[in-house]
Protein backbone atom coordinates (compact mmCIF):
# COMPACT_ATOMS: atom_id res chain seq x y z
CA UNK A 1 0.00 0.00 0.00
CA UNK A 2 1.40 3.34 -1.01
CA UNK A 3 1.85 6.15 1.54
CA UNK A 4 -0.58 8.23 -0.49
CA UNK A 5 -3.32 5.60 -0.26
CA UNK A 6 -2.65 5.03 3.42
CA UNK A 7 -2.95 8.78 3.98
CA UNK A 8 -6.24 8.85 2.08
CA UNK A 9 -7.56 5.98 4.17
CA UNK A 10 -6.55 7.71 7.40
CA UNK A 11 -8.23 10.90 6.21
CA UNK A 12 -11.30 8.93 5.26
CA UNK A 13 -11.43 7.25 8.67
CA UNK A 14 -11.21 10.62 10.43
CA UNK A 15 -13.93 12.01 8.21
CA UNK A 16 -16.18 9.02 8.92
CA UNK A 17 -15.69 9.45 12.65
CA UNK A 18 -16.44 13.17 12.41
CA UNK A 19 -19.54 12.48 10.36
CA UNK A 20 -20.71 9.99 12.96
CA UNK A 21 -20.08 12.49 15.74
CA UNK A 22 -21.92 15.23 13.88
CA UNK A 23 -24.85 12.92 13.25
CA UNK A 24 -25.12 12.19 16.95
CA UNK A 25 -24.81 15.86 17.79
CA UNK A 26 -27.49 16.76 15.27
CA UNK A 27 -29.87 14.19 16.71
CA UNK A 28 -29.21 15.45 20.24
CA UNK A 29 -29.74 19.05 19.18
CA UNK A 30 -32.99 18.09 17.49
CA UNK A 31 -34.26 16.34 20.58
CA UNK A 32 -33.38 19.28 22.82
CA UNK A 33 -35.00 21.72 20.41
CA UNK A 34 -38.10 19.57 20.17
CA UNK A 35 -38.41 19.26 23.92
CA UNK A 36 -37.82 22.99 24.33
CA UNK A 37 -40.40 23.86 21.72
CA UNK A 38 -42.93 21.56 23.31
CA UNK A 39 -42.30 23.03 26.74
CA UNK A 40 -42.62 26.58 25.42
CA UNK A 41 -45.83 25.69 23.60
CA UNK A 42 -47.25 24.13 26.74
CA UNK A 43 -46.22 27.12 28.82
CA UNK A 44 -47.64 29.58 26.29
CA UNK A 45 -51.04 28.05 25.83
CA UNK A 46 -51.61 26.60 29.25
CA UNK A 47 -51.01 29.97 30.86
CA UNK A 48 -48.45 28.63 33.26
CA UNK A 49 -46.23 28.90 35.11
CA UNK A 50 -48.28 30.29 37.92
CA UNK A 51 -45.40 32.45 39.00
CA UNK A 52 -45.59 34.35 35.74
CA UNK A 53 -45.51 38.07 36.23
CA UNK A 54 -47.54 38.64 33.09
CA UNK A 55 -50.06 41.46 33.72
CA UNK A 56 -53.65 40.47 34.16
CA UNK A 57 -54.81 43.97 33.30
CA UNK A 58 -53.85 46.33 30.52
CA UNK A 59 -53.89 50.12 30.64
CA UNK A 60 -55.40 51.73 27.57
CA UNK A 61 -54.50 55.04 26.10
CA UNK A 62 -57.50 56.66 27.73
CA UNK A 63 -56.43 55.45 31.16
CA UNK A 64 -59.13 52.83 31.59
CA UNK A 65 -58.19 49.28 32.31
CA UNK A 66 -59.35 46.10 30.69
CA UNK A 67 -58.83 42.57 31.81
CA UNK A 68 -56.28 40.58 29.95
CA UNK A 69 -57.81 37.62 28.15
CA UNK A 70 -57.66 34.45 30.12
CA UNK A 71 -57.41 31.17 28.31
CA UNK A 72 -60.37 29.12 29.34
CA UNK A 73 -60.16 26.25 26.97
CA UNK A 74 -56.98 24.49 25.91
CA UNK A 75 -58.62 23.01 22.89
CA UNK A 76 -60.24 24.75 20.03
CA UNK A 77 -62.05 23.53 17.00
CA UNK A 78 -60.97 24.66 13.61
CA UNK A 79 -63.34 25.39 10.84
CA UNK A 80 -62.93 22.00 9.28
CA UNK A 81 -63.64 20.16 12.46
CA UNK A 82 -60.15 19.09 13.38
CA UNK A 83 -58.94 19.87 16.86
CA UNK A 84 -55.94 21.64 18.16
CA UNK A 85 -54.67 22.37 21.63
CA UNK A 86 -53.77 25.84 20.74
CA UNK A 87 -50.88 25.44 18.42
CA UNK A 88 -51.31 26.21 14.81
CA UNK A 89 -52.38 23.03 13.17
CA UNK A 90 -53.44 24.18 9.75
CA UNK A 91 -56.31 21.80 9.79
CA UNK A 92 -54.44 18.76 10.98
CA UNK A 93 -54.58 17.23 14.42
CA UNK A 94 -51.72 18.16 16.66
CA UNK A 95 -50.92 17.19 20.22
CA UNK A 96 -48.38 19.86 20.86
CA UNK A 97 -45.36 17.74 20.18
CA UNK A 98 -44.73 19.09 16.77
CA UNK A 99 -41.08 19.03 15.83
CA UNK A 100 -40.57 15.36 16.36
CA UNK A 101 -40.32 13.22 13.27
CA UNK A 102 -40.62 9.55 12.58
CA UNK A 103 -38.74 9.67 9.33
CA UNK A 104 -34.99 9.33 9.08
CA UNK A 105 -34.59 8.40 12.71
CA UNK A 106 -33.67 4.78 12.22
CA UNK A 107 -30.28 4.04 10.81
CA UNK A 108 -29.46 0.68 12.31
CA UNK A 109 -28.81 -2.22 10.02
CA UNK A 110 -28.88 -0.10 6.90
CA UNK A 111 -25.78 -1.78 5.48
CA UNK A 112 -27.32 -5.24 5.60
CA UNK A 113 -24.31 -6.68 7.36
CA UNK A 114 -23.68 -6.80 11.08
CA UNK A 115 -21.16 -8.09 13.53
CA UNK A 116 -21.53 -11.59 14.84
CA UNK A 117 -20.04 -13.12 17.91
CA UNK A 118 -20.75 -16.67 16.82
CA UNK A 119 -18.75 -19.05 14.71
CA UNK A 120 -19.28 -18.91 11.02
CA UNK A 121 -21.72 -21.11 9.17
CA UNK A 122 -19.76 -20.60 5.97
CA UNK A 123 -16.63 -18.92 4.66
CA UNK A 124 -16.55 -16.18 2.07
CA UNK A 125 -13.15 -16.10 0.44
CA UNK A 126 -11.39 -16.30 -2.88
CA UNK A 127 -11.33 -19.56 -4.76
Amino acid sequence: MTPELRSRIAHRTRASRLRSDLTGLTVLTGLVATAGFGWLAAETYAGTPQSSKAPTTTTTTDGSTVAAPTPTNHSSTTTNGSTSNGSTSNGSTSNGSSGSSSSGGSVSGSSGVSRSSGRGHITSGSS
Partner: protein
Amino acid sequence: MLDQVHWRALGTNAHLLVLDGDLPAARAWVDELLDEIDRTYSRFRDDSELSRLQAQAGAWTTVTPLLWQAITTAIAVARDTDGAVDPTVGQAMRVIGYDRDFALLGSRHGEPADFEIRLAPVPGWRAIGLHAPERRVRIPRDVELDLGSSGKALAVDLAVRAAAAAAPRGGVLVSLGGDLATAGRAPDGGWRILADEDSETPPDTAGEVVAIQAGAMATSGVTVRRWRGADGIERHHLLDPTTGSPVEGPWRTVTAVADTCVAANAASTAAIVKGDDALDWLDRQGRPARLVATDGFVVRAGGWPAPLDVVVA
Protein backbone atom coordinates in the same frame (compact mmCIF):
# COMPACT_ATOMS: atom_id res chain seq x y z
CA MET B 1 -32.71 -27.38 12.05
CA LEU B 2 -29.74 -26.35 9.91
CA ASP B 3 -28.40 -29.03 7.56
CA GLN B 4 -25.52 -28.67 5.17
CA VAL B 5 -23.55 -30.47 2.52
CA HIS B 6 -20.53 -29.59 0.40
CA TRP B 7 -19.07 -31.01 -2.76
CA ARG B 8 -17.09 -30.01 -5.86
CA ALA B 9 -18.85 -28.30 -8.75
CA LEU B 10 -17.86 -25.99 -11.58
CA GLY B 11 -14.23 -26.44 -10.65
CA THR B 12 -14.65 -25.10 -7.14
CA ASN B 13 -16.12 -25.93 -3.75
CA ALA B 14 -19.91 -25.85 -3.44
CA HIS B 15 -21.76 -25.49 -0.13
CA LEU B 16 -25.46 -25.80 0.51
CA LEU B 17 -27.06 -24.91 3.84
CA VAL B 18 -30.74 -25.57 4.41
CA LEU B 19 -32.71 -24.29 7.39
CA ASP B 20 -35.87 -26.24 8.19
CA GLY B 21 -36.11 -27.75 4.74
CA ASP B 22 -35.36 -30.81 2.66
CA LEU B 23 -31.59 -30.93 2.13
CA PRO B 24 -31.52 -33.84 -0.37
CA ALA B 25 -34.20 -32.20 -2.47
CA ALA B 26 -32.38 -28.87 -2.39
CA ARG B 27 -29.13 -30.57 -3.38
CA ALA B 28 -30.88 -32.24 -6.29
CA TRP B 29 -32.22 -28.92 -7.54
CA VAL B 30 -28.80 -27.29 -7.26
CA ASP B 31 -27.02 -30.21 -8.93
CA GLU B 32 -29.39 -30.13 -11.85
CA LEU B 33 -28.94 -26.41 -12.29
CA LEU B 34 -25.15 -26.48 -12.03
CA ASP B 35 -25.00 -29.26 -14.60
CA GLU B 36 -27.01 -27.14 -16.98
CA ILE B 37 -24.78 -24.15 -16.33
CA ASP B 38 -21.65 -26.19 -16.97
CA ARG B 39 -23.05 -27.44 -20.26
CA THR B 40 -24.09 -23.94 -21.22
CA TYR B 41 -21.29 -21.54 -20.47
CA SER B 42 -18.15 -23.36 -19.35
CA ARG B 43 -15.23 -22.15 -21.45
CA PHE B 44 -13.29 -25.32 -20.59
CA ARG B 45 -15.71 -27.67 -22.34
CA ASP B 46 -15.51 -27.97 -26.09
CA ASP B 47 -19.12 -29.11 -26.16
CA SER B 48 -20.53 -26.22 -24.13
CA GLU B 49 -22.91 -23.83 -25.83
CA LEU B 50 -20.46 -20.99 -25.18
CA SER B 51 -17.70 -22.89 -27.00
CA ARG B 52 -20.02 -23.50 -29.93
CA LEU B 53 -20.96 -19.83 -29.94
CA GLN B 54 -17.29 -18.94 -29.88
CA ALA B 55 -16.72 -21.19 -32.89
CA GLN B 56 -19.36 -19.13 -34.71
CA ALA B 57 -17.53 -15.88 -34.00
CA GLY B 58 -18.37 -13.21 -36.51
CA ALA B 59 -21.90 -14.53 -37.15
CA TRP B 60 -25.17 -13.80 -35.43
CA THR B 61 -26.17 -16.86 -33.43
CA THR B 62 -29.35 -17.61 -31.52
CA VAL B 63 -28.61 -18.75 -27.98
CA THR B 64 -30.58 -20.45 -25.24
CA PRO B 65 -32.27 -18.35 -22.56
CA LEU B 66 -29.63 -19.35 -19.99
CA LEU B 67 -26.67 -18.32 -22.15
CA TRP B 68 -28.49 -15.14 -23.08
CA GLN B 69 -28.95 -14.40 -19.39
CA ALA B 70 -25.30 -15.13 -18.66
CA ILE B 71 -24.02 -12.90 -21.47
CA THR B 72 -26.37 -10.00 -20.78
CA THR B 73 -25.57 -10.24 -17.07
CA ALA B 74 -21.84 -10.07 -17.85
CA ILE B 75 -22.39 -7.05 -20.07
CA ALA B 76 -24.50 -5.33 -17.41
CA VAL B 77 -21.75 -5.95 -14.87
CA ALA B 78 -19.16 -4.51 -17.27
CA ARG B 79 -21.29 -1.43 -17.80
CA ASP B 80 -21.98 -0.97 -14.08
CA THR B 81 -18.32 -1.31 -13.18
CA ASP B 82 -17.15 1.12 -15.87
CA GLY B 83 -15.56 -1.79 -17.69
CA ALA B 84 -13.49 -2.99 -14.75
CA VAL B 85 -15.11 -6.43 -14.91
CA ASP B 86 -15.27 -7.28 -18.58
CA PRO B 87 -16.31 -10.57 -20.23
CA THR B 88 -14.03 -10.08 -23.24
CA VAL B 89 -10.95 -11.12 -21.27
CA GLY B 90 -11.15 -14.66 -22.65
CA GLN B 91 -8.23 -14.35 -25.04
CA ALA B 92 -6.05 -12.56 -22.48
CA MET B 93 -6.87 -15.28 -19.96
CA ARG B 94 -5.87 -17.95 -22.46
CA VAL B 95 -2.67 -16.13 -23.38
CA ILE B 96 -1.51 -15.99 -19.77
CA GLY B 97 -2.15 -19.70 -19.46
CA TYR B 98 -5.55 -20.04 -17.78
CA ASP B 99 -7.01 -22.13 -20.58
CA ARG B 100 -8.32 -25.15 -18.72
CA ASP B 101 -9.88 -26.12 -15.43
CA PHE B 102 -7.66 -24.68 -12.72
CA ALA B 103 -7.07 -28.13 -11.19
CA LEU B 104 -5.32 -29.15 -14.43
CA LEU B 105 -3.03 -26.14 -14.72
CA GLY B 106 -0.33 -27.64 -12.54
CA SER B 107 -0.01 -30.72 -14.73
CA ARG B 108 1.89 -28.97 -17.52
CA HIS B 109 4.48 -27.19 -15.44
CA GLY B 110 7.98 -27.81 -16.66
CA GLU B 111 11.00 -25.77 -17.53
CA PRO B 112 9.96 -22.25 -18.47
CA ALA B 113 10.01 -21.69 -22.19
CA ASP B 114 12.24 -18.94 -23.51
CA PHE B 115 9.67 -16.52 -24.90
CA GLU B 116 7.80 -13.44 -23.87
CA ILE B 117 4.05 -13.24 -23.47
CA ARG B 118 2.75 -10.00 -24.96
CA LEU B 119 -0.39 -8.63 -23.38
CA ALA B 120 -2.77 -6.01 -24.69
CA PRO B 121 -5.98 -4.27 -23.62
CA VAL B 122 -9.07 -6.42 -24.08
CA PRO B 123 -11.60 -5.54 -26.82
CA GLY B 124 -14.26 -4.48 -24.33
CA TRP B 125 -17.88 -5.43 -23.79
CA ARG B 126 -19.19 -2.97 -26.38
CA ALA B 127 -17.75 -5.24 -29.08
CA ILE B 128 -20.43 -7.86 -28.37
CA GLY B 129 -23.52 -7.62 -30.53
CA LEU B 130 -26.93 -8.36 -29.00
CA HIS B 131 -30.33 -8.68 -30.62
CA ALA B 132 -32.82 -9.16 -27.82
CA PRO B 133 -36.04 -9.96 -29.74
CA GLU B 134 -34.46 -13.13 -31.17
CA ARG B 135 -31.86 -13.74 -28.44
CA ARG B 136 -29.08 -13.51 -31.00
CA VAL B 137 -25.48 -12.79 -30.15
CA ARG B 138 -22.54 -11.83 -32.32
CA ILE B 139 -18.99 -12.13 -31.03
CA PRO B 140 -16.36 -10.51 -33.23
CA ARG B 141 -13.74 -12.89 -34.61
CA ASP B 142 -10.95 -11.51 -32.49
CA VAL B 143 -12.94 -11.63 -29.22
CA GLU B 144 -13.16 -14.49 -26.73
CA LEU B 145 -15.67 -14.47 -23.91
CA ASP B 146 -14.94 -15.50 -20.36
CA LEU B 147 -18.08 -15.43 -18.23
CA GLY B 148 -16.21 -16.79 -15.24
CA SER B 149 -16.58 -13.90 -12.82
CA SER B 150 -20.21 -12.93 -13.28
CA GLY B 151 -21.06 -16.42 -14.49
CA LYS B 152 -20.22 -18.06 -11.18
CA ALA B 153 -22.13 -15.39 -9.28
CA LEU B 154 -25.13 -15.84 -11.55
CA ALA B 155 -24.94 -19.57 -10.90
CA VAL B 156 -25.14 -18.87 -7.17
CA ASP B 157 -28.16 -16.58 -7.59
CA LEU B 158 -29.96 -19.13 -9.75
CA ALA B 159 -28.99 -22.03 -7.50
CA VAL B 160 -30.25 -20.41 -4.34
CA ARG B 161 -33.56 -19.69 -6.01
CA ALA B 162 -33.82 -23.31 -7.08
CA ALA B 163 -32.88 -24.62 -3.65
CA ALA B 164 -35.41 -22.35 -1.93
CA ALA B 165 -38.19 -24.53 -3.29
CA ALA B 166 -37.03 -27.24 -0.91
CA ALA B 167 -37.41 -25.00 2.15
CA PRO B 168 -40.68 -23.10 1.70
CA ARG B 169 -40.91 -22.21 5.40
CA GLY B 170 -37.19 -22.09 6.05
CA GLY B 171 -34.16 -20.68 4.32
CA VAL B 172 -31.21 -21.67 2.16
CA LEU B 173 -27.68 -20.50 1.50
CA VAL B 174 -25.66 -21.53 -1.55
CA SER B 175 -21.95 -20.87 -1.90
CA LEU B 176 -19.70 -21.50 -4.89
CA GLY B 177 -16.07 -20.85 -4.16
CA GLY B 178 -16.87 -18.43 -1.38
CA ASP B 179 -19.41 -16.38 -3.36
CA LEU B 180 -22.76 -16.92 -1.69
CA ALA B 181 -26.42 -15.96 -1.71
CA THR B 182 -29.32 -16.58 0.63
CA ALA B 183 -33.06 -16.99 0.27
CA GLY B 184 -35.91 -17.29 2.73
CA ARG B 185 -35.56 -17.16 6.48
CA ALA B 186 -32.18 -16.79 8.16
CA PRO B 187 -31.14 -18.63 11.32
CA ASP B 188 -31.36 -16.74 14.62
CA GLY B 189 -28.69 -14.07 14.50
CA GLY B 190 -28.44 -14.29 10.74
CA TRP B 191 -26.28 -16.29 8.37
CA ARG B 192 -22.87 -16.08 10.01
CA ILE B 193 -20.02 -15.75 7.54
CA LEU B 194 -16.31 -15.86 8.12
CA ALA B 195 -14.75 -13.17 5.95
CA ASP B 196 -11.50 -14.74 4.87
CA GLU B 197 -9.08 -14.65 1.97
CA ASP B 198 -9.45 -18.31 1.08
CA SER B 199 -12.83 -19.97 0.66
CA GLU B 200 -11.30 -23.28 1.76
CA THR B 201 -10.73 -21.94 5.29
CA PRO B 202 -13.06 -23.78 7.69
CA PRO B 203 -15.81 -21.41 8.89
CA ASP B 204 -15.12 -22.12 12.56
CA THR B 205 -11.56 -20.83 12.19
CA ALA B 206 -10.60 -17.74 14.21
CA GLY B 207 -11.32 -14.62 12.20
CA GLU B 208 -13.76 -11.89 11.39
CA VAL B 209 -17.33 -13.17 11.44
CA VAL B 210 -20.23 -11.06 10.21
CA ALA B 211 -23.90 -11.83 9.76
CA ILE B 212 -26.44 -11.12 7.05
CA GLN B 213 -30.17 -11.69 7.29
CA ALA B 214 -30.63 -11.74 3.54
CA GLY B 215 -28.84 -10.98 0.31
CA ALA B 216 -25.45 -12.08 -0.85
CA MET B 217 -21.72 -11.77 -0.29
CA ALA B 218 -18.75 -12.30 -2.55
CA THR B 219 -14.99 -12.23 -2.19
CA SER B 220 -12.42 -11.64 -4.88
CA GLY B 221 -8.70 -11.88 -4.43
CA VAL B 222 -5.33 -12.48 -5.95
CA THR B 223 -3.86 -14.71 -3.25
CA VAL B 224 -5.41 -17.91 -4.54
CA ARG B 225 -5.85 -19.38 -8.03
CA ARG B 226 -2.30 -18.47 -8.97
CA TRP B 227 -0.12 -20.41 -11.35
CA ARG B 228 3.22 -20.19 -13.09
CA GLY B 229 2.86 -19.69 -16.82
CA ALA B 230 4.84 -21.28 -19.62
CA ASP B 231 7.21 -18.32 -19.46
CA GLY B 232 7.92 -19.07 -15.81
CA ILE B 233 6.12 -16.00 -14.46
CA GLU B 234 3.57 -16.47 -11.68
CA ARG B 235 0.19 -14.93 -12.41
CA HIS B 236 -3.34 -14.79 -11.05
CA HIS B 237 -6.76 -14.74 -12.68
CA LEU B 238 -7.98 -11.20 -12.04
CA LEU B 239 -7.17 -9.22 -15.16
CA ASP B 240 -7.14 -5.50 -15.70
CA PRO B 241 -9.06 -5.04 -18.97
CA THR B 242 -7.08 -1.89 -19.76
CA THR B 243 -3.83 -3.86 -19.93
CA GLY B 244 -4.89 -7.46 -20.37
CA SER B 245 -2.54 -8.44 -17.57
CA PRO B 246 -3.15 -9.56 -13.97
CA VAL B 247 -4.02 -6.66 -11.66
CA GLU B 248 -1.19 -5.19 -9.64
CA GLY B 249 -2.97 -2.89 -7.21
CA PRO B 250 -3.12 -2.07 -3.54
CA TRP B 251 -5.72 -4.71 -2.63
CA ARG B 252 -5.21 -8.44 -2.42
CA THR B 253 -8.72 -9.39 -1.24
CA VAL B 254 -12.07 -7.61 -1.26
CA THR B 255 -15.35 -8.88 0.19
CA ALA B 256 -18.60 -7.10 -0.62
CA VAL B 257 -22.28 -7.41 0.29
CA ALA B 258 -25.23 -6.77 -2.03
CA ASP B 259 -28.75 -7.92 -2.75
CA THR B 260 -27.53 -10.47 -5.28
CA CYS B 261 -24.36 -12.45 -5.70
CA VAL B 262 -23.87 -10.94 -9.15
CA ALA B 263 -23.85 -7.44 -7.66
CA ALA B 264 -21.63 -8.47 -4.75
CA ASN B 265 -19.15 -10.18 -7.06
CA ALA B 266 -19.13 -7.22 -9.42
CA ALA B 267 -18.29 -4.93 -6.50
CA SER B 268 -15.56 -7.12 -5.03
CA THR B 269 -13.91 -7.82 -8.37
CA ALA B 270 -14.17 -4.25 -9.60
CA ALA B 271 -12.65 -2.99 -6.35
CA ILE B 272 -9.57 -5.14 -6.91
CA VAL B 273 -9.26 -3.84 -10.47
CA LYS B 274 -9.94 -0.21 -9.60
CA GLY B 275 -7.18 -0.18 -7.01
CA ASP B 276 -6.68 3.28 -5.52
CA ASP B 277 -10.11 4.38 -6.73
CA ALA B 278 -11.93 1.44 -5.15
CA LEU B 279 -12.97 3.12 -1.90
CA ASP B 280 -14.56 6.12 -3.58
CA TRP B 281 -16.27 3.86 -6.10
CA LEU B 282 -17.64 1.55 -3.39
CA ASP B 283 -18.93 4.60 -1.53
CA ARG B 284 -20.79 5.75 -4.61
CA GLN B 285 -22.20 2.25 -5.05
CA GLY B 286 -23.26 2.11 -1.40
CA ARG B 287 -21.74 -1.33 -1.02
CA PRO B 288 -20.51 -2.54 2.38
CA ALA B 289 -17.07 -3.94 1.75
CA ARG B 290 -13.96 -5.20 3.50
CA LEU B 291 -10.69 -4.61 1.69
CA VAL B 292 -7.39 -6.23 2.55
CA ALA B 293 -4.34 -4.40 1.26
CA THR B 294 -1.33 -6.25 -0.09
CA ASP B 295 0.45 -5.62 3.21
CA GLY B 296 -2.47 -7.06 5.22
CA PHE B 297 -3.94 -3.72 6.29
CA VAL B 298 -7.74 -4.03 6.47
CA VAL B 299 -10.10 -1.22 5.45
CA ARG B 300 -13.86 -1.34 5.90
CA ALA B 301 -16.22 0.74 3.78
CA GLY B 302 -19.90 1.40 3.22
CA GLY B 303 -21.13 0.29 6.63
CA TRP B 304 -19.13 -2.90 6.97
CA PRO B 305 -19.04 -3.38 10.76
CA ALA B 306 -15.93 -2.84 12.83
CA PRO B 307 -14.30 -6.06 14.01
CA LEU B 308 -15.23 -5.94 17.68
CA ASP B 309 -16.09 -9.61 17.79
CA VAL B 310 -13.38 -11.93 16.70
CA VAL B 311 -13.92 -15.62 17.21
CA VAL B 312 -11.16 -17.29 19.18
CA ALA B 313 -10.61 -20.86 18.19
